């Protein structure tokens, strides 16, 4: 009868599925290797209660292995920390980085970052997108203690170097980094975004391709909510005293950063003057437009450096 044939076919199919599943689970070393189904789907196939008597032992064994694999991911879902920022731990997950604030009270800063990166996408000139990481998604994560954390998932930047780990740079390298920095902040300013924390640890460089990525947009905005405590000395007075920030704030911090990177004593005279003219306490006395300033910068440096 057709129903019997159908049942037999179904039984054979289930058997094949079961055996495949067991084989895959036994072969897997991490939960990632089991990409085909979710945990629940696998569990349904190999659960001992569902298995026929003669397969129960196999099922129990496979189920145990499956649980172990997923147990591992949930407890160390946070794998090894990829990097530690001012307020967040960063975990690598393939092509993405998960940025998780240590303290849930810093969720607002994470939201600021998400908003800034979205604004850069929406309002920024798309040709300059490479100057900031792409926000893949942002979500609220709740842990077992019911603490909620805003998690920003960012595109991972490969083969790049953090500026604070780059060691002593040649002046030539400092010059292209300075140029890229002005381009990056000018691009953001035109999109209405002030970075607010231009510091060594927030800059990635790609020495061969002369790339620069500005990280950590948590402090963005015209009314900054926080500063990087360890770098208090790098901030201009308007941030510390008035809690305001403008494009002139980024210009001040970028200038201070490049002065530190080169070292005041190694700084060529024209660049020293240039830096002095960007570093007044009063924000109104500083240049207001990073791209216009780049024009001035380019005049100071040899032509073959302007790239």
């Amino acid at each position, binding site marked *: 009868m057709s129903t019997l044939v159908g049942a037999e076919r179904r039984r054979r199919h289930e058997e094949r599925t079961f055996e495949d599943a067991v084989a895959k689970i036994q072969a897997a070393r991490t939960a990632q290797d089991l990409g085909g189904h979710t945990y629940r789907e696998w569990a349904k196939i190999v659960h001992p209660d569902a298995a026929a008597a003669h397969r129960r032992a196999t099922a129990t064994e496979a189920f145990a292995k499956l649980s172990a694999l997923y147990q591992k991911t949930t407890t160390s879902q946070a794998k090894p920390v990829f990097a530690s920022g001012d307020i967040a731990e960063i975990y690598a997950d393939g092509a993405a980085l998960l940025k998780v604030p240590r303290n849930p009270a810093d969720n607002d800063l994470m939201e600021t970052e998400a908003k800034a990166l979205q604004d850069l996408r929406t309002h920024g*000139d*798309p*040709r*300059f*997108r*490479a*100057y900031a990481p792409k926000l893949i998604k942002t979500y609220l994560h709740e842990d077992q203690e019911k603490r909620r954390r805003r998690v920003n998932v960012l595109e991972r930047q490969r083969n790049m170097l953090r500026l604070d780990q780059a060691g002593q740079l040649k002046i030539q390298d400092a010059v292209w980094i300075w*140029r*890229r920095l002005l*381009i990056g902040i*000018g*691009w953001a*300013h*035109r999109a*209405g975004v002030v970075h607010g924390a231009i510091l060594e640890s927030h800059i990635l460089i*790609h020495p061969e*391709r*002369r*790339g*620069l990525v500005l990280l950590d947009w948590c402090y963005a905005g*015209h009314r900054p909510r926080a500063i990087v405590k360890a770098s208090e000395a790098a901030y201009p007075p*308007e941030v510390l005293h*008035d809690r*305001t*920030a*403008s*494009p*002139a704030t980024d210009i001040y911090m970028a200038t201070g950063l490049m002065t530190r990177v080169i070292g005041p004593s190694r700084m060529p005279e*024209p660049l020293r*003057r*240039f830096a*002095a*003219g*960007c570093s*007044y*306490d*009063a*924000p*109104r*006395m*500083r*240049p*207001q*437009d990073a*791209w*216009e300033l*780049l*024009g*001035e910068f*380019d*005049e100071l440096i040899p032509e073959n450096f302007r*790239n």
Partner: protein
Amino acid sequence: MGSGHWSTDVYTAAANYRAATGKSAFDYSDSGARHAHPDLDPNGVFMRESRDSSEHPFSTPIAVLFDVTGSMGNVPRVLQTKLPQLLGLLTRKNYAVDPQIMFGAIGDATCDRAPLQVGQFESDNRMDEHLSRIYLEGGGGGQKHESYELALYFMARHTIIDSMVNRGRRGYLFIIGDEMPYPRVKPREVQAVIGDTIKQPIPIEEILTELQRKYEVFYILPTAAGWGGDAEVLARWRGLLGQNVLELDDLDAVCETIALTVGLGEDAIDLDEGIADLEDLGSAAGSSVGRALAPLQRTSVVRDDQFQITAGPGGNQRL
């Protein structure tokens, strides 16, 4: 193209961006002030000084006084936002050594509450404080005259500049306005506004001659202002200052104009170089500044060690 990978081509993307500035640049006026801030009140001031110091051994004094009366329309406000960047521009471009800048404002002594406001020569943030404390009168008499002569009098008699005393280099005085000076410095107004007693009126030509011993004096007429381009006003100032009258058709370029003028005067650049500087920026200011400054191109100063100058007392005595 696409993500472009760290595109650096900002020059084609640059146009027409105005940075949002944080707090109002017009603190003092907007707070409802009705008279000059004490720091800027010329009454009883003995001397405003531009001094050499160990930090700034070769001071270059630059004074910028602008008309704040109603005929100037929105111009004073624009100036108040633009001028803070003058020092940085001079510094970054090395147009002048150790610039010290003083800001001030000119009104009308016949009817205004604050006919003259003068800050101090500063080489740091204080100049910005002075600038933001300038009270924007918005009054004026509407008869094409303002009390410029009073400002000239103050600058001539109540400033002392080391660049002149120590090095024989004149300072720079820029007057930005759109009307004519009254023909004479009047004793009554000098008494009321500055506190000096002078016996008789001083013709403007006379006070200007005295002033020009200390300063290279320029008059900038923004064409955006009320009397901008007015033939009578221009003719009057040209008669007094000759080629040092500059017409400026783009107010945004005011700092560049002043900076380049100083650069030219200090022989730090020649005009073509200066204009090229601006055009490199993709700045629209280039052509405006070029038109404004075209008359100022001059032959350069000779710098060599051909002869030794012996130190000794001068052959004359100033009265």
